[in-house]
Every structure is written in structure tokens, then in C-alpha cells.
């Protein structure tokens, strides 16, 4: 059974989230205090973390950073300020996605499903981008025999680009393909994660060769070897 860890200091909201997620068929672990979050995470190793940004004790962004330092688990942030600097900080700290309060239960569940899904291996399970080999079955990345660790979201992002080398993806297209958004225009999500991905797979992140920016349009997988 899939375990979701909910970190929120608002006990009523946490309980409500528990009810909704249980109803959607997930097991839920509620944590009410930021100080206990990391400990709980290590003990229970959840499949996904739902994290409120504003927490007493250690705040959400710091918890996000700590968890990301030792795990590739999907992290979704909850925030009341969708337009603020907090969102970018959370994404840069390693969060995969965020939900702005007040959200609908159905939206939340749909979004979590995208984050928890196993990437579909449509036949070709081995992809190549530049000098990197992508194994979609083993969900791993290899360069010169060495494994590069990626979060699931980063992996999905790289696969989406690598599947169609040379195609230019707009940010909106990536949001729909990788994040499951329908009409969203928050390009910060894409920008931040492309940067994070580059810092992991590019030899020189300042002069990216594998993931190239197409000014005014979006991104594409580099074809240069």
C-alpha cells in the first residue's frame, strides 16, 4: 500500500487530508510538527511527502531540503501564497510540485497520482541522450558506467525530452506532460526543475548541451554528442 506522509501543523486540515487520502486509497502518516518530520520520514519511508510551507519549529522549506538530501521521494508543498517567493524557495529546495490553498480534494488526488505513477515503458526501454544512457525499466541513468541519481520527476522530465530529440517543448507542454497540469501557466515549476536537472546531468551546467534552451519557446534535448 502507498504511504503518504502529511506534514501540517493545522491539525484539522491534516485530519481532513487524512480522510480524503484514505478515501482515495492511500495510507496516511500525519505529522504535526516540523521537528519530528525528518525522524518520521526515516522511520516510515513514505512513498510521497505532502508538506506545508509554514510550520512551527523547522519550516517546510528546510524539511524539504533535509529530506531531499537523503532521498529521491516525491515532495509536494502546500502553500497559502501561490504568488510569493516561498514557492520558488520550496521548488529550489527540491519540491516537485505545489498546491495553493484552498484546493479541491479532486485536484489534490489527481496531482498526487501523477507524482506517484510509474513511468510507462512503451516498448523502447533504453533511451540515449548525449553520452547518457536512460534505462526506463530500471529507472536509472548511466554515464560511463556510473549511475546518476535523479528524483522521479527529474527522470520523467529527462525522458520526456529524450523521447523526441530535437523537438522543442514549450513550458506549457512540459507542464501538461510531466506535471499533469491542464491549463497551467506557472512556468516557474519548469524553469526551476530544468535548472536542477542540468546541475545533475550536464558536464557544465552553465553551458548546457543535453538540455538546450530555445529562446522564446522552451527547451529541447540536445543532439550533439
Amino acid at each position, binding site marked *: 500500500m502507498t504511504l503518504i506522509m502529511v506534514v501540517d501543523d*493545522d491539525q*484539522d*486540515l491534516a485530519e*481532513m*487530508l487524512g*480522510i*480524503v487520502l484514505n*478515501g482515495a486509497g492511500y495510507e496516511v502518516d500525519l505529522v504535526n510538527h516540523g521537528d519530528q518530520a525528518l525522524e518520521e520520514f526515516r522511520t516510515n519511508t513514505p512513498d510521497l511527502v505532502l508538506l506545508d510551507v509554514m510550520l512551527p519549529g523547522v519550516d517546510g522549506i528546510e524539511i524539504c531540503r533535509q529530506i531531499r538530501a537523503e532521498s529521491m521521494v516525491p515532495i509536494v508543498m502546500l502553500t*497559502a*501564497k501561490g*504568488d510569493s517567493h516561498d514557492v520558488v524557495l520550496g521548488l529550489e529546495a527540491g519540491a516537485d510540485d505545489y498546491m495553493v*490553498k*484552498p*484546493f*479541491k*480534494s*479532486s485536484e489534490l488526488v489527481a496531482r498526487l497520482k501523477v507524482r506517484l505513477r510509474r513511468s510507462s515503458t512503451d516498448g523502447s526501454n533504453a533511451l540515449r541522450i548525449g553520452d547518457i544512457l536512460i534505462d526506463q525499466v530500471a529507472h536509472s541513468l548511466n554515464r560511463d558506467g556510473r549511475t546518476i541519481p535523479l528524483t522521479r520527476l527529474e527522470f520523467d522530465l529527462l525522458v520526456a525530452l529524450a523521447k523526441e530529440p530535437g523537438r522543442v517543448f514549450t513550458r506549457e507542454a512540459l507542464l501538461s506532460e510531466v506535471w499533469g497540469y491542464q491549463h497551467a*501557466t506557472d512556468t516557474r515549476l519548469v524553469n526551476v526543475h530544468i535548472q536542477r536537472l542540468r546541475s545533475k546531468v550536464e558536464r557544465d551546467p552553465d553551458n548546457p548541451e543535453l538540455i538546450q534552451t530555445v529562446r522564446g519557446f522552451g527547451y529541447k534535448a540536445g543532439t550533439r554528442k
Partner: protein
Amino acid sequence: MNSFLRRWRRSILLQVIGSSVLISIVVTSIVGTLLYSRISDGIYREKAHAAVAEAQSLADYTQSQLDITRYRTDLSLTKVISGILRVADVSPTTSVRETILLATPQTAKSSTVYQGTSNDVLISTIPDSMRKIVRKDFFSDPLRVKILYKGRPNQSIEAIAVGRVIGIPPNYIYEIYYLFPLTQQSQLIDLIRGWMLGTAGVLTLMIALIIWYVVRKVVLPVREVAEVAEKLTEGDLGRRLAIRGEDEMGRLAVSFNEMALAMQQQISRLENLSRLQQRFVSDVSHELRTPLTTIRMASQILYDSRGSLDPAASRSVELLISQIERFETLLTDLLEVSRFDARAAILETKDIDLKPLVLKVIDELQANEMPEFNFQGPDSEYRAEVDDRRIERIIRNLISNAIDHSENKGVTVTMAQSEHEVAIGVRDYGIGFTDRDAERLFDRFWRADPSRSRVRGGTGLGLSIALDDAKLHQGTLKAWGRPGSGANFVVTLPKNPGIPIASDPIEVIPSDQSSTLLPDFDSDDI
């Protein structure tokens, strides 16, 4: 010339120096002219006295010489006369005097006429009027004349002429004129005039300098005050005057600074207050979101299981859900308003075609419930660089508002463009509004008729936000209304950000209405 006039108008220093120099020039020239004419008069009178005395003695001497030659021959007479004329026969410029001997008309009739001038002086030097006086009175008062020379038409020397009558034997009457050149006197007067002009120039310059110094003492601090006051007006509230001395200027600086400080404190107090209030609105909105999330999720669960509830409870859940939606819209609008108040609203522009956006909003609203909709406008692209999220919100707010007040009589949406502007007009034929309402139309939470029930449950912030959004694009939002005839709202946007609106592709007064009631809401009064 124009720039000089502007500088003149803007500078007290220039005005004071200019007018005082002008006045001193006038005064010195009056005094100088008076003084000059007195002095030159005196000098001439002196010379005239001397001339009369000298002429008298010369004439007496000449007469005595002629008397001695009485009864002698013409030859000796000629000799004496040429002697008389030769007395001054030096060069014309240095000569002490010139002499002219003329026969009276009666004498001229006799056989021998002894007539002549010294140094080629022309006889016409002596005016006829003078000769008449001399012939009648045997002498004349000194007269100023110009000595003319034969063969030198350009040379003439000022002189004083004195005329006498002498007799030449045996009994002929002759006029003799002595001309005393005024060369020395003229030189002296020229010298005096030069000195006077020089003195006047120096005096004027000194006056200008003194006034410049004095006025500068006063004007410079005033100018400084003006500069600092301008800076204060521009918002640089920390600017102060330098305090020099304890005189009036020093006291002015002190009290000016006190005023500036009081103003700064007051402004920062007000700014602080308004910042606090904006923060408060923003914080409240955010704090409300967490409980709202819980309520929303809880109500959704109730809603999903409403089949098992009795009809009253089931309907209540439906109402609960719709009111939560409304509450959330209100919160979002409140947050947006607080963002505008805090000037934290940011324009994210894209080059888009506005027509599909308008059609999309019409489509979405039409799906709900609908008075008849009408789209008018040439079938072309309406491209503009705008923040599509905000423009969509403006259109949605205007159309929702129109639907709310249309009384199901239909809504017409019009689009038009000019070279630099795109306009969207939303017209309804419903209840309209009065002139008095027009002034408050864009006020927050204002309702045209409080007793009227809300059909769609708008937040009351829609028009206010639409106006703010339009202003953020440097566009305009104008409204026209007539009770019973409906209302017309026209938003006009620049195609490129930062270019002020210069024309109206759509007139806010509908073509089927001729009256001219018009509040203009593109000023910064809200």
C-alpha cells in the same frame, strides 16, 4: 531670445540687476546731459567774451592803420589791407583766427573794391543775416559759424565770428569779420564728454556689481529653498537646508527644516499605517485559506454522499459548496486588491490576439445561463502585448457585470482597434445607472441598488479590479450609463506597453444614445 526671456522670468537676480542698470543708465544720462550742456555752454561763453574783446581791439587797430593811410595811393592801401588779411595767414588748422574783409553793397558800387579773406576762407562762411545786422548796427554779437575753405568742401572748422564795420579812405564802408576757431574748446569738451561717459559706464557697472552682490546674498538662499522644496515634492523627504548664520535666512532655514521634518514624520506615519493595513488584509486573506481548504474538502465529502441525506440536508450541502466557491473568489479578489494597494502588482505581458480570449470568456459565461449574446467587430486579429491573465479578468468582470444588470435584455460585446490601441466594449440594455452612481461605480463593494438582490453573487470588487488592471496596462476603462437604457463599459488598451492612449477606437457613448453624461475614470482618483 525666447530662452533669454524664460531665464529673465525665472530669475530675480537677472530682473533686479537688469532694471537697476536700466534705471542708473537713464539717471546718469539725464544728469550727464545736463552737466555737459552747462559746461560746454560756459566754455563757449568764455570764448565768446574773449572773442568780442579781441575783435574790438583788432578792429580799432586796423581802423587806426587805415586812418594813417588816408590820402595815400590805392597801392599803399592795398598793401595795408593785404597786411590785415595776412596777419593770421598761417596754416588754417593752427591759425589763431581768420579774417574776412567785405565791401558793403554801396561800397561795391564804387570803382575800387578791397575785398578778401585769409587762408582761402570762403565768403559764404558769414551768413547774410549776420551781415545785415553788422551793416545796420556797425557790429554784431558773437555767432557760432562753420568756417568753409575754398577747394576743401569736406573741411569745416567751428568758430566764433564777430563782425565790425570799418571805414577805408576816402569814404568807403567795409565789413570786417574775425573768426576765432573753437578747435581747443572742442577738444576740451570732447575730453570732458569722454570722461563723463567713462564715469557713467564705471558707475553703472559698479551699481550692477553691488546689486548683484546684495541680491545674490538674498536670492541664493531663496533659490536653495526652492530647490530643496522641489526635491521634497518629488518625494525625497530626507532633503534639508544647510543652516548658515543666525540672520533671517538662517531662521528661514531652521523653520523650513522643521516643517520638512514634521511633514516627513507625518507621511511616514501614514505610510506605515497604510502598509500595516495592506499587510493586514493580505495576512487575513492568507490565514483564511487554511481553514477554507479544510471546509472545502469536508463539504466535498458531504456533497459526494448527498444521496444518502434527506432533501433539506442535501440542498444545504449544495448551498454550502456554492458559498464556499463565492467565499474563495472573494478572498482571491481581496488579495488582488491588496496587491494593487501595495503597488505589488506585476505586469507579465505577452503578444497575443485578444479576440479568441474574448470569445473564450463569452463561451464560458454563456454555458452558465444567458441573456442573448452578440459579438460585433471586424473579423481580424486584435494583437496587443498584454498580461493575458489580467485582460481575461477584465473581460470576465465586465461581461459578468453586464449580465448581472442586463435584466435578460441581451449583452453586446464589441471589439475595435486603431494603429496603437485595442478596445473592447461591453454594452447592456438593462437597468443602467444615474450620474450620481457613475461617481461611485468603481468603488469597492459598492452596489448600485442595495435593495436589489444579487443574481450571480459577484464580489463587489470586480469593476474596481478591472479598473486597476486597465491602469496597470496604462489603458483606460470608461463607463456610460442611463437609467433604463443600460450601460456601456469600454476598456482601451495600448498595443505596446508604456504608450499612453491617444485615441478611442470605441466611443463610450453608444451610437444609439446622443446625450453626453460622462465620468472619466482614467485619472488616478481611485
